[in-house]
């Protein structure tokens, strides 16, 4: 991904930078392409990989928001557990050893 941002390279050239097979790199590229994070374009005989920088920024921003959503959910889970914590939850019983 970093390489696709800094230079326009073909899948073949990209594969040369990584200690994995061409097929493996192709698979990664396909996943990123489906997610809309990169685009592939045919220039002559080469397939050039371009990053969709905007999509990447959007993804990062959305992940931040989603983190906030889960943090709030976990706060509520915690409150719920605290509310119901009685002797059953705080005292070790043989049940916890299974």
């Amino acid at each position, binding site marked *: *991904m970093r390489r696709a941002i800094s230079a326009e390279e073909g899948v073949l050239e990209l594969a040369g930078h990584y200690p994995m097979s061409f097929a493996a790199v192709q698979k990664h590229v396909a996943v990123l392409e489906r997610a809309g994070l990169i685009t592939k374009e045919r220039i002559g005989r080469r397939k050039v990989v371009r990053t969709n920088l905007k999509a990447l*920024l959007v*993804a990062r921003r959305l992940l931040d928001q989603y983190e906030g959503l889960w943090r709030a*959910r976990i706060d509520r*889970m915690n409150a719920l557990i605290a509310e119901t914590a009685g002797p059953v939850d705080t005292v070790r019983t043989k049940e916890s050893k299974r």
Partner: protein
Amino acid sequence: MTVTAVRKDPQRITLTVEAEFDARVDRVWQLWADPRQLERWWGPPAYPATFTKHELAPGSRVEYHMTAPSGDQPHGYWDILEVEPPRRILLRDACSNADGTPNPESTIRVEIKEVAPGRTRMSIETVFPSTAAMEQALANGTDVGLSQAVSQIEAILAEETIHR
């Protein structure tokens, strides 16, 4: 601090949140297994969730709706892919449009395990198929609302463009 780790991978559009609770594994499991408890945390108080069908079994569909302050009730469902009580759930979360067609979903993997006696770690990994799916999930799951989220994103993108 309950949340112990957060990992974000924008390339895989994946968020992993880890939290630890002062409770036993069975108690933490109930947060997911008991629909009445789920309703207390899935949505914020101003935008609560109601689970109308809930069975954690492989192949089963859990159904819920949110109730927005405006009275809107977006519907969502989980397709349960794998369950291993009381420690593991793999589900696909989706929402249905007004016409009943499904919207792009996220895949959520929940793992619950004891880290010390009476202390339990829950890890929640959410994978989105696209940023569009993620925007949709946020619109349905938060009281922030999509328009506000999008305007924030646009402001950030505008800033980035100026700096470049």
